[in-house]
């Protein structure tokens, strides 16, 4: 019994690889022949009976069992012929099953792609809620195409697109279509979304080498998708980026914020668009003298968002000390028209006719044309020429009476002054508009002009002219509009109302905006209006911006500031008790040097080590994006 099976096995070679097996296999009675490779039973007989005389003898081979009992029929047909329905072998069944599963899946896939669920099938995951709510309005089948160029293609088209990029808009183009505030759009795919010239030279070179090495044509082809990957769920942070990726293009590589990040050399940096305020002198001198406490928090209060305000404003912060002096400086008023003292006879003798001239202003040459008048007179070419001769900073007291040309020029200016007053008596607002348009070299709008003359009507100039030229007594001397006729000084004056006077502001803006060819005019005007002793002392604090020479009237709100490369939020920091004292970080600079090249803070630069104390990977974090913005320069409404 030990070899019961083995001895039964000697029937030739097993053929497990054949595709079909005899239908009788299961019952253990498979025939010797087996089906054809295509699975047909050919009903082979086990022997070819031999004829012996008239009868037939079984001729079954010895190996197949020898002559059978039944023997052949009388006609010589073998009686042992098996019929069956061949069945597939195990291996063939397996192959069939696997290929049917594959076919079924392929078919199901095609069916789904042809159905209205085709997009649901391939969408890899939900969009962030921001994008999702925008796309929710679009029909499901068209959603993909909003962002993907291949979105409207068929499955075959996808294969084509997969193999080679198709022409037409890229996905980035579709991003920028909505994200228009990536200004300007041409820089949307530039590194840091700025013109490449704006990047440091060294970085640009590294960048070019890098983009070349990763197979990009140009450095300005950083597709949005390189950093922003969608379909990761509603709550996914699309802006998350690793520190290593930030450094991909940077010439200077370093390991972490704590190790290798450059020291801060000028942070915090005084804003070039700021109202001048010297913290040092206030704390050490002015407050000390008045024995008042210099408390940072009294000006830098926390806003509703918890962020530090840059200032609480003039009224709360400055007025208590500075308002009296400011108001005092205004008492003289702002002259729009003022006749200097002219020796009309001397002029006439010299052959230069000043025309008519107020009698009250006749005498030895003395006095100046006020700044506003210079501006208005400069609009006339011959007056401008006269000023060129005499200089805008002219004081008639210094007039060289032996110079006929100077006298002629003075006469021209006198005539022009008279003409100016006459015209002011017409429509003052329009006159200022016209003349300022000439001086600024641009069209001045009427509302702009209205601001300059405030509520001045033609009544006051008429009255003034009548009084000074014709000697008619005027009943209009002082009016509620702020304009008055100063008969003693032979001047038409505006009386500013105090801090932030709009007329003064408007005229200073005009002066700041004067074109380059009128530099001498501007200098003269600034000397009068923006000097330390000028009316209102405006420019003492409201300095001119370094960039555009405009006066900075108020601190920009955060949404007005361009998106900076570095940002800092005070709120989360000052919550810490040890940082509640501003001086914990901000030490005043020992020496304040005034540099014209760059606005400089009167605080010492912060030490990196101060930040590193907390900003470590497993503490407050040292992600690049905690302090730095990638997309620089766009308004922060886009943050």
């Amino acid at each position: 019994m030990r070899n019961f099976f083995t001895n039964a096995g000697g029937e030739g070679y097993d053929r497990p690889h054949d595709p079909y097996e005899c239908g009788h296999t299961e019952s253990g009675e498979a025939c010797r022949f087996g089906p054809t490779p295509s699975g047909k039973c050919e009903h082979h007989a086990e022997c070819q009976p031999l004829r012996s005389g008239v009868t037939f003898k079984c001729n079954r081979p010895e190996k197949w069992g020898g002559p059978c009992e039944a023997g052949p029929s009388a006609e010589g047909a073998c009686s042992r012929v098996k019929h069956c329905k061949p069945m597939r072998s195990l291996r063939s069944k397996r192959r069939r099953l696997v290929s049917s599963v594959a076919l079924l899946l392929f078919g199901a896939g095609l069916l789904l792609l042809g159905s209205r669920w085709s997009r649901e099938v391939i969408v890899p995951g939900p969009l962030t809620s921001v994008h999702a709510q925008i796309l929710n309005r679009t029909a499901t089948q068209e959603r993909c195409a909003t962002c993907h160029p291949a979105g409207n293609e068929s499955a075959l088209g996808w294969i084509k697109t997969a193999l080679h990029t198709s022409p037409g808009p890229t996905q980035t183009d579709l991003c920028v279509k909505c994200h228009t505030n990536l200004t300007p759009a041409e820089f949307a795919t530039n590194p840091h979304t700025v013109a490449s010239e704006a990047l440091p030279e060294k970085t640009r070179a590294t960048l070019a080498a890098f983009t070349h090495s990763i197979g990009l044509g140009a450095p300005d082809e950083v597709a949005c998708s390189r950093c922003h990957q969608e379909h990761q769920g509603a709550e996914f942070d699309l802006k998350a980026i690793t520190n290593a990726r930030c450094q991909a293009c940077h010439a200077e590589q370093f390991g972490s914020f704590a190790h290798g990040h450059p020291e801060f050399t000028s942070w915090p940096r005084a804003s070039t668009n700021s109202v001048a305020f010297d913290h040092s002198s206030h704390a050490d001198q002015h407050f000390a003298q008045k024995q008042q406490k210099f408390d940072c928090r009294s000006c830098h209060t926390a806003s509703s968002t918890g962020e530090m305000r840059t200032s609480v404003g003039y009224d709360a912060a400055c007025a208590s000390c500075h308002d009296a002096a400011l108001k005092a400086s205004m008492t003289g008023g702002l002259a729009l028209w003022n006749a200097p003292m002219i020796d009309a006879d001397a002029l006439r003798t010299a052959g230069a006719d000043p025309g008519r001239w107020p009698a009250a202003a006749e005498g030895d040459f003395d006095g100046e044309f006020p700044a506003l008048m210079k501006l208005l007179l400069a609009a006339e070419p011959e007056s401008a020429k006269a000023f060129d001769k005499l200089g805008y900073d002219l004081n008639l007291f210094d007039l060289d009476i032996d110079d006929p040309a100077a006298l002629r020029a003075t006469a021209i200016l006198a005539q022009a002054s008279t003409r100016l007053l006459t015209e002011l008596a017409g429509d003052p607002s329009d006159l200022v508009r016209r003349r300022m348009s000439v001086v600024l070299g641009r069209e001045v709008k009427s509302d702009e002009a209205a601001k300059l003359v405030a509520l001045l009507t033609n009544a006051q100039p008429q009255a003034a002219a009548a009084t000074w030229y014709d000697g008619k007594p005027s009943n209009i001397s002082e009016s509620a509009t702020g304009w008055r006729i100063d008969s003693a000084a032979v001047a038409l004056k505006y009386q500013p109302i105090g801090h932030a006077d709009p007329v003064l502001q408007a005229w200073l803006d005009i002066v700041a905006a004067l074109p380059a060819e009128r530099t001498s005019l501007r200098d003269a005007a600034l000397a009068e209006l923006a000097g330390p002793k000028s009316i209102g002392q405006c420019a003492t604090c409201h300095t001119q911006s370094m960039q555009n020479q405009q006066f900075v009237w108020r601190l920009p709100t955060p949404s007005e500031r361009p998106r900076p490369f570095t940002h800092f939020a005070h709120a989360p920091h000052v919550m810490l008790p040890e940082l509640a004292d501003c001086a914990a970080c901000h030490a005043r600079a020992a020496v304040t040097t005034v540099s014209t090249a760059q606005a400089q803070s009167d605080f010492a630069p912060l030490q990196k080590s101060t930040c590193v104390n907390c900003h470590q990977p497993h503490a407050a974090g040292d992600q690049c994006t905690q302090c730095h913005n990638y997309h620089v320069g766009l308004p922060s409404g886009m943050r």
Partner: protein
Amino acid sequence: MPTTQPILTRPQRWDEPFAADMSDELVQRLLGIEPFVRMNPADFPRSTPLAGILRNDARVVELRDGDLIVREGDYGSSAFLVLHGRVRIALESLAPDLLGRESPKRLSLWQALAPLWRKPKPPELRPSLSARDANGKVALRNEQAQPRVFLQDVPAVIGETRTAQLRAGELFGELSALARTPRSATVFADGAVTLLEIRWQGLRDLMKHTPALQSHIHSMYRQNSLRVHLRETPLLANLSAEQLSVVEKAVEFQSFGSFDWHHDLTKPNAPDFAQRISREPIVAEEGELPMGILLVRTGFGRVTERFGEGDRTRDYLAKGAAFGAAELACTTITGAPTPLRHTLRAVGQLDLLLIPALTFTQVIAPTLPRDDLHRLAAEAAPVKQSSTATPLADRTLDFLVDQRFINGVEAMVINLDRCTRCDDCVRACAATHDGNPRFVRDGMVHDQFQFAHACMHCADPVCLIGCPTGAIHREQTTGVVQINDRTCIGCGTCASSCPYTNIQMVEVRRRDGVIAIDSLTGQPIVKAAKCDLCNSHHSGPACQQACPHDALVRIDLTSPTSFANWSAR
């Protein structure tokens, strides 16, 4: 006269004489011619008289011009004596196609990939069945149920090849018949010729009792291959040419056992293994003093040790191995005679070379490095009783020898602990052989090892003996035993000779997939089919290549080492 002999002492082989038609007159006539006339019948024992040998162990063969008598590389068990006519012996190797052989064609990579797109075919398809003489240079003569292959154009062969003539009275083929070595040359009939074919049993008796014949045969062996054999023996590696000649002269020839070992295995009433051991002739016995070093020339020896009531196998020896060296080394060092630790028995036929003990101590031992000699001697130290020659368990050695797997050079062994029965080996085999597997994944199991029914390309290829057309032959360069399907006549001799049933007779099919039937007998036409070791492929045996789990191996079992290493993995 044989009739006067008591029946009991008559050699068993005479129950079936070599040829039934040897008459007494013929025997008498033979006794009157060379070389038998010079033999002295009195030298022969009563059980095997000279006339009896001629009567029962010889037959007369008549051949026609061009008939191939022996082919170079064939294995044969008989020698030939030219009685009448002439034969020619080719002094150069003849082209394989002249001998009706096909040299395997290596398949290209493209052909190796063919299974990917090839359609399944019916089993054993032979589209051109009639091509028995397909290559046109040899043909098959099928007369008196004694088919012969002959050269069609003898003058051309003689013209192109250096040949020598053998005339009446000359003997050839005796060396390879006695030593079971491949025929060294091709011999064919030059004109009509009558030969006396003597089977090896008779030849050995003739040799034993005819000193002239014995010295002739031994001197031929000494001339042809003794020196090569000695040179290849590691023990003699340090000998100078002169010392080697001394050893060469001292060598004695010994021969034990029978070539018919394989019949024992296939007989249904084969004796059990314990009996089998006791039947194996003892060459040298445990406890006796060694006569010298025994070198195995051909055949197999079993090394046993007394254990309980029987003998257990400790090792087995094949060609090239030495026996008794350790004991002699011990004697050389200690000076005291050391008895043999083991018994050497002949498994089947065992031909030995005996280097006498004196030659060892005087000539060989001094050439051995000191360390080697001591290491050798340490093996024979009596304290190390339990040491085994190989890391294989005794019962495994017993099994391998008892089942004669020691004959296998490329035996297929499957580790059943790893085999997942996926049949990838069978499938690979089929893919390599036109859709037909060439082995059966079944067979004897020992421990977790299955010895599958795949041709082992045996060291002693008994299947080769008796093939009438030489279709089954051993490829000389690779040792692969293969069958030329064109010249196989389906007689089944090889299949029934194979003691391991590793050759199957398969019913071949015509082009249309129907089993071909011999028109004369009405019986299916069969061909012998067996593993060819994928010798037409570069990759080696596909079964081993295809086994995914390192379970199947083609392994040399003629020495226990490779199997021991493999099975210990």
